[in-house]
């Protein structure tokens, strides 16, 4: 089996897709991550960190930078090319959906069965394979410029390669176990990447927060997977989800807990898996990690929050959708427990986080909450049975959200440029030696380049960024007809409206929530655009903000342009054929997206009839929000020092929104502090130091005591014997020596005495004495 065979075989080709980025990770980590040591105060190291004063820190060499970037790009481009081949294979295949590409290997033999590794390409995977490599490649290109001055750029590329590899593994996986492997690797990468600038306390804390929050969800998800394995005997998607008998079996078995309340096994598994997604895709109540994850570099935010990680959560649900649907029929109003959960959580989260986004001043945080909100949209869509719509929104969201994050990254980069310029300028002006280069932090306030209140007027200095940001923002808001976001959002609302008209409760709830959320989305997007780009610069740094010339700015603007293009046109793949004008242009026969992705499910979801009402609602909320934002922030852009008018309008509500409903504080009191207390007092002090150390010390003391005993025994006995015998001999000798007096008469006396004694012995032994006596 050689490479050619694999490349030409559509069943085996998917194996190679994740290989590129994963291999790039290993190569970069092992070979091209060379660093040179510079003093920590050096300019190359960037931030001045007091902990490292006087030390030398590693900064990656230019050669390694170039090599790592090349290797990383090669990895992701390979993945892209192979994905394109697979996609074209998929387009060319007949009855794609019933027939799929796939291959399987036996991996781990257990007692009763085997765990397998395998790949599966069905229609849904195919559209993911269109989206993921594009987004990832754009992010890679962007990172070349964004991280060009970072001391650890090669490590960054290694980690995002690993991240991309994990995402691709997850996408092409054919069973839950392999998918979970990709899931967990992404969790690890998110930790490593969010805490990439680990010198910053807020960064590493955010990394830990992300990891632990998603971990909580992952454990429950694993329980769900285990239960599924126990009930079904397999974890393969095809065997469970494309199998009527299996789904019925799972839907009819009562769950091992709460089964008495009517929860089926499928329902319990579904709930657990959904909890996993709630963690990974940052839904309420496990959404708290996502805004803090903005501490990572912007490409990471783009990757995590647009292309990869949060998408993985929704991907998992879309993948397992038949399981959630089993036993019910959302289109007929029968909502199973998992579906209800998704609808409620998704709908609530969509509105909840949209309200928080309205009051945020950090440009990335607005986008973070916006992501949470949009994921809520997707989840809610799935909850009401709008499978295709959710998948469609996932794809379009990835494009415009990645675009928005990267554009905001450009904005921040430009602002930092401006900050640098300003301080250099100031340093030139003042010839006072007291003001050294490091003193610019002592000017009283710390300048935050991410704070939108410090921006303004950037459309003049960063035009490309402005236009791409605008397109992305309009797409996010669902600007009618011309943006991808509109088409995907509209489809969700259409599905919800249909359910509402039938009188089903869940769709009605979802419809209302999503409409309100869409309104707020449009509003805060316009607010963000207005504060950042419109009017005049509110600070000197903003006035000098630009990206500069050269390769750095090019690599940062090119992806924006490409993604902006996709943010507009990608939506035209899913137009309803009955839509006025656009339907005829883009979907002459059928909704292409629906037609292609539909067969992923055993029962293709029926396309819904076109209704103008939800479209009008979409128009209304989108334009309404955009208009309100325009009226408040674009007509009369904010001046320097002018407070946000929203603060006075919302009054007491505003601080609540700004502080994220104080959820972080609540969690800290309820969960984190008790855990830390427990860890410190019970585990560390009591168990570790008290019991385990106690036992060890005890054993040590016992053995030391035994050792001492043996030592003393040794000294007493062996030394005693060893020393005693010579001493005895010496004493004996000294005593015996006294016989040698040198006086002959004494010798003679002894001889005579001896003679008498011997004679006596002889006499007695021969019985002579007895005889003589007798």
């Amino acid at each position, binding site marked *: 089996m050689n490479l050619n065979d694999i490349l030409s075989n559509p069943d085996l080709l998917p194996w190679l897709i994740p290989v590129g980025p994963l291999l790039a990770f290993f190569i970069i980590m092992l070979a091209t991550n060379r660093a040179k040591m510079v003093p920590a105060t050096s300019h190359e190291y960037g931030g001045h960190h007091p902990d490292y004063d006087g030390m030398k820190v590693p900064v990656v060499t230019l050669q390694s930078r170039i090599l790592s970037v090349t290797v990383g790009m090669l990895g992701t481009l390979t993945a892209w090319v192979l994905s394109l081949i697979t996609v074209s294979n998929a387009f060319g295949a007949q009855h794609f959906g019933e027939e799929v590409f796939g291959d399987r290997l036996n991996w781990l033999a257990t007692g009763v069965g085997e765990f397998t590794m395998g790949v599966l390409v069905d229609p849904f995977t195919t559209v993911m394979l269109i989206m993921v490599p594009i987004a990832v490649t754009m992010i890679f290109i962007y990172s070349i410029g964004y991280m060009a001055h970072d001391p650890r750029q090669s490590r960054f590329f290694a980690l995002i390669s690993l991240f991309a590899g994990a995402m691709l593994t997850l996408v092409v996986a054919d069973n839950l176990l392999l998918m979970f492997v990709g899931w967990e690797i992404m969790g690890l990468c998110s930790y490593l990447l969010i805490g990439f600038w680990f010198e910053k306390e807020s960064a590493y804390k955010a990394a830990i927060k992300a990891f632990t929050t998603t971990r909580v969800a992952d454990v429950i998800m694993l329980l769900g997977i285990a239960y599924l394995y126990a009930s079904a005997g397999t974890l393969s998607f095809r065997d469970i989800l494309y199998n009527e008998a299996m789904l019925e079996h799972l839907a009819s078995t009562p769950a091992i807990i709460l089964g008495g309340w009517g929860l089926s096994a499928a329902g319990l598994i579904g709930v657990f898996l959904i909890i996993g997604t709630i963690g990974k895709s940052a839904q309420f109540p496990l959404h708290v990690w996502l805004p803090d994850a903005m501490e990572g570099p912007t490409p990471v935010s783009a990757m995590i929050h647009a292309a990869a990680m949060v998408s993985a959560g929704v991907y998992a649900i879309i993948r397992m959708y038949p399981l959630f649907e089993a036993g019910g029929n959302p289109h007929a109003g029968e909502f199973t427990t998992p579906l209800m959960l998704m609808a409620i959580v998704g709908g609530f989260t969509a509105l909840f986080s949209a309200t928080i986004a309205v009051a945020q001043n950090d440009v990335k945080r607005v986008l973070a909450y916006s992501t949470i909100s949009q994921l809520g949209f997707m989840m809610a869509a799935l909850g009401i049975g709008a499978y295709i719509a959710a998948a469609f929104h996932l794809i379009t969201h990835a494009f415009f959200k990645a675009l928005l994050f990267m554009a905001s990254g450009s904005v921040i980069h430009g602002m930092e440029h401006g900050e640098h310029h300003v301080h250099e300028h100031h340093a030139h002006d003042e010839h006072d030696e007291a003001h050294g280069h490091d003193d610019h932090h002592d000017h009283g306030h710390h300048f935050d380049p991410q704070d939108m209140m410090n921006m303004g007027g950037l459309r003049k200095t960063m035009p490309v960024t402005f236009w791409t940001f605008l397109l992305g923002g309009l797409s996010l808001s669902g600007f009618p007809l011309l943006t991808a976001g509109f088409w995907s959002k509209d489809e969700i609302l259409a599905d919800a409206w249909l359910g509402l008209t039938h009188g089903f409760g869940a769709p009605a709830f979802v419809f209302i929530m999503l409409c309100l959320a869409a309104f707020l989305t449009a509003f805060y997007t316009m607010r963000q655009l207005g504060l950042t780009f419109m009017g005049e610069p509110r600070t000197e740094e903003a006035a000098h903000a630009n990206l500069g010339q050269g390769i750095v700015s090019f690599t940062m603007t090119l992806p924006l342009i490409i993604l902006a293009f996709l943010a507009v046109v990608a939506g035209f793949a899913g137009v309803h054929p009955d839509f006025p004008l656009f339907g005829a242009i883009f979907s002459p026969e059928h909704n292409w997206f629906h037609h292609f992705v539909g067969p992923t499910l055993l029962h293709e979801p029926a396309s819904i009839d076109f209704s103008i009402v939800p479209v009008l609602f979409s128009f209304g909320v989108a334009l309404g929000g955009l208009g309100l934002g325009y009226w408040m922030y674009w007509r009369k852009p904010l001046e320097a020092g002018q407070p946000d008018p929203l603060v006075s309008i919302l009054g007491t509500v505003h601080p609540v929104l700004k502080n994220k409903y104080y959820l972080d504080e609540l969690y800290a009191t309820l969960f984190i502090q008790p855990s830390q207390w427990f860890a410190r007092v019970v585990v560390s002090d009591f168990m570790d130091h008290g019991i385990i150390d106690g036992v060890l010390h005890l054993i040590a003391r016992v053995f030391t005591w035994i050792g001492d005993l043996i030592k003393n025994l040794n000294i007493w006995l062996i030394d005693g014997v060893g020393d005693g015998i010579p001493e005895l001999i010496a004493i004996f000798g000294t005593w015996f020596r006294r016989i*040698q007096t*040198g006086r002959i*008469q004494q010798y003679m006396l002894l001889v*005579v005495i001896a003679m008498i004694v011997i004679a006596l012995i002889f006499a007695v032994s021969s019985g002579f004495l007895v005889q003589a006596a007798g």
Partner: protein
Amino acid sequence: MIPLWMYLLVAAALFCMGAYAVLARRNAVAILMGVELMLNAVNINLVGFWRYQQPLNMAGQAFAAFVFVIAAAEAAVGLAIIISVYRQRKSVIPDEADTLKG
């Protein structure tokens, strides 16, 4: 006739007296005199046993004769040594000749 055991008794007494002199006297010449006594006691024994047991066999008398010879030689040499030692050390006390003391 005198019973043999009387001669033997006298000889034994004489022998023990000589032994005492050898062991206990402080003067070297006195020791030598003790030796002569012992030798005489031996002679009495020899002759006594010869007379009472084997009067026809000359072994007894011959042996006694040889004892004479030995006694004479020993006395001569011993006294020569005593005189020589006296010349060196100016002392005839054996107790003082303890240079071989260990």
